[in-house]
């Protein structure tokens, strides 16, 4: 019994440690979103999914969405269309390195929003996309 308790405790701690940076970022984005829009009540994976798949025009006027590189099924490997470099899956269910490092999440959100939308995402948009990814 004691063993099971300890095992459960270890698993719980590991899971918590994995998502601590994600939770911290989401809490801060939530605060920002509320201050920017008083009607904000929480992040939505549905809105995030729409943002992820909405086709925009890239800097060369070519169609682009997040799925251009990350695939329609983000549990699959993606590919950078310009260089051919393979991108490891985005979904945390198949890639446990995802959503564990706050600096990485912030860097890629800024970089990729600019690539696809030509601007930085708002706090709500970033949180929505993270909510979508974290559920995959």
């Amino acid at each position: 019994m004691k063993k099971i308790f300890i095992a459960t405790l270890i698993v719980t701690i590991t899971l918590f440690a994995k998502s601590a940076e994600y939770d911290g970022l989401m809490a801060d984005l939530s605060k920002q979103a509320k201050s920017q829009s008083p009607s904000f009540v929480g992040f939505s994976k549905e809105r995030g999914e729409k943002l992820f798949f909405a086709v925009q025009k890239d800097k060369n006027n070519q169609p682009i969405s997040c799925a251009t590189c990350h695939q329609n099924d983000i549990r699959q490997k993606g590919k950078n269309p310009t260089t051919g470099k393979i991108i490891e899956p985005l979904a945390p269910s198949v890639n446990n390195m995802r959503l564990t490092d706050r600096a990485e999440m912030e860097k890629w959100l800024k970089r990729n929003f600019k690539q696809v939308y030509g601007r930085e995402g708002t706090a709500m948009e970033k949180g929505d996309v993270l909510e979508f990814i974290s559920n995959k």
Partner: protein
Amino acid sequence: MKKLVILSALAVVSFAGGHKVEPVNAAYQKECGSCHTAYQPEFLPRNSWNRLINEQNNHFGEDLALSSAKANELKAFLFSRSADVSTNKTARRFASTQGIKISENPYFVKEHRRIGSAELKKQGLKSFANCSSCHKLADQGNYDEQ
């Protein structure tokens, strides 16, 4: 016979000294190798790397969004082995590059002169940015002909 042995020995030596540079560190591999080959520092001189990192908010049209701490860390690594300070034989050939494109270096152009855009297309590529499509050991710093 003796001559033949010496000749063979020479051939082996010159092959071994071909186009090899040092592998990169993990931080650099992660930051730069996510999108393209993590080009080893030996392929551009210090001035070019300095400009490239300073212009990271417009990196061939993209904003890399690197923190200034991370940018400085990358610079320190790149400067430590840049083409103008490295003693590597291949690096010396890249020391005279003026701009930030490795693929515009005269030696690079000469070595790749037989590979036209048709060959790149055949490989599913739009540029020379993914070295390991042809140089399978590029990530380990080995650019000998494959």
